[in-house]
């Protein structure tokens, strides 16, 4: 019980001592923290971009929907019957009928071609069905489309899933590249912290020697350096989160402008809380690991003479 309390007290002291040590040389510490921050901000920022592209992709999930243009002479009742028939299929989630009269009105209102339409006689638009298959997989969608194509009232089935598939593949590729960048930059952070701790160990070799002479164990000697690494990683990750947030803030207005031009309500999403926590915890762990490597490698070399 007593030794546990002693242990915890030592840890708390090491934690605070390490923080004080960082604060005592603000310039050097900030440089190291900044290097770590940039190395962590890069994968975190890329991750945010891929997440956003993924969200965009999700909002296009409806792209598995396809449009069915019925023949121009199909009556409204007949169109409704065909819609019900398709909607009754087990592989179809739902079917929306766009009445040709309503479609014309809408087109007139939105397209700005109102006067040109007036010049035509009658309604050039057919009844349209929007079919959403239950499954978004390319093969399943194709099967539904083929069945619909076989219905005599169907004039044209417009199916355009290839680009969605391509976009998804590109996103998967981008995600994998971000994963690789994350691994590489995590290694870089570990090395940066390890090297900083190595210099710290060298500059405190007298202290290490004395502590060894009066009976300090390897663990006792190592701990202050581990906490130093921990703070470097934690501070670096915190700064990285700020950098990412600032970058998103800077990107937000132009992204909104683009989204508005495309008539989309798309909003740039920031790092979700879960990933901020992951970033900060990850940074602290990497800092600790870097310090561990440095101490394992260099502390043994300092022995009392």
């Amino acid at each position, binding site marked *: 019980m*007593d030794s546990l309390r002693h242990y915890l*007290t030592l840890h708390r002291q090491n934690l605070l001592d390490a923080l004080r040590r960082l604060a005592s040389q603000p310039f050097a510490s900030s440089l190291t923290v900044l290097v770590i921050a940039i190395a962590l901000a890069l994968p975190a920022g890329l991750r945010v971009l891929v997440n956003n592209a993924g969200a965009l992709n999700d909002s296009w999930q409806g792209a598995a929907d396809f449009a069915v243009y019925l023949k121009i002479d199909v009556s409204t009742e007949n169109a409704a019957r065909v819609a019900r028939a398709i909607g009754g299929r087990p592989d179809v989630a739902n079917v929306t009928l766009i009445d040709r009269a309503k479609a014309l009105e809408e087109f007139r209102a939105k397209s700005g071609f109102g006067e040109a339409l007036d010049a035509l006689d009658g309604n050039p638009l057919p009844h349209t069905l929007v079919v959403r298959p239950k499954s978004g997989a390319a093969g399943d969608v194709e099967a539904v489309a083929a069945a619909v194509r076989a219905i005599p009232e169907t004039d044209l089935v417009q199916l355009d899933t290839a680009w969605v598939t391509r976009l998804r593949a590109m996103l998967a590729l981008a995600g994998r590249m971000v994963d690789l960048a994350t691994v590489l930059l995590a290694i870089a952070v570990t090395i940066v912290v390890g090297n900083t701790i190595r210099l710290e160990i060298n500059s405190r070799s007298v202290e290490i020697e004395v502590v060894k*002479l009066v*009976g300090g164990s390897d663990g006792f000697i190592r701990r202050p350096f581990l906490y130093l690494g921990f703070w470097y990683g934690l501070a670096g990750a915190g700064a990285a989160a700020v950098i990412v947030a600032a970058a998103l803030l800077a990107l937000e207005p132009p992204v909104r402008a683009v989204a508005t031009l495309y008539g989309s309500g798309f909003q740039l999403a920031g790092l979700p809380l879960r990933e901020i926590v992951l970033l900060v915890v990850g940074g602290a762990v990497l800092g600790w690991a870097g310090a561990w490597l440095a101490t394992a490698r260099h502390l043994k070399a300092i022995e009392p003479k």
Partner: protein
Amino acid sequence: MIRFENVFKRYPSGREALSGVSFNLERGEFAFLTGPSGAGKSTLLRLIALIERPTRGTVLINNQNTARISRGRIPPFRQRLGVVFQDHKLLHDRSVFDNVALPLVIAGASRREIERRVRAALDQVGLLGRESHAPITLSTGEQQRVGIARAVAPRPDVLIADEPTGNLDPDLSREIMELFTRFNEVGVTVLIATHDLELIEHLPHRQLKLVAGQLAADSGRGGS
């Protein structure tokens, strides 16, 4: 308490620092280790503190064969040993108090225990009231006394010192030796390496004289 049995220490360079040294220092004994510089005094002390290992022979401390102490068991071994250095080896980025407290912190003493023992040790060396000073602001003699306070604060069974008066004038040196004598009087086994024969000639303690790595003379008790 400290027993050397036919101990040899040869360095990789081929130099033989100790050749067949045997002696026995009983618990509570006080002995000086004398001899010209290069005779092997520091090497002998380093073998006791497990800073080095003998090439051949046996070193027993408190009936424990030091050859059987693995690297990982050295820290607890050193915690029971007080060591005083010629150059004090104080940490200059912390106060006198923190310097003396260091071995107690390492040993896991409670805060109250640390306060009490640091004060007691500083009192014994005549530096009570200087806890918050930086070592650098103290004189050389005072710094050496801080070093001694650090060595005795954990109440070690054995106190070894390598030329503890090497940088001090005769008066200060005598004070330091009186300090060691007082610790010896309360039962601590003391072994001090010194080349200052003038200083110790009027002291009654046993003298072990090393010449060229061999025990040339032993004035005292114990026997080998």
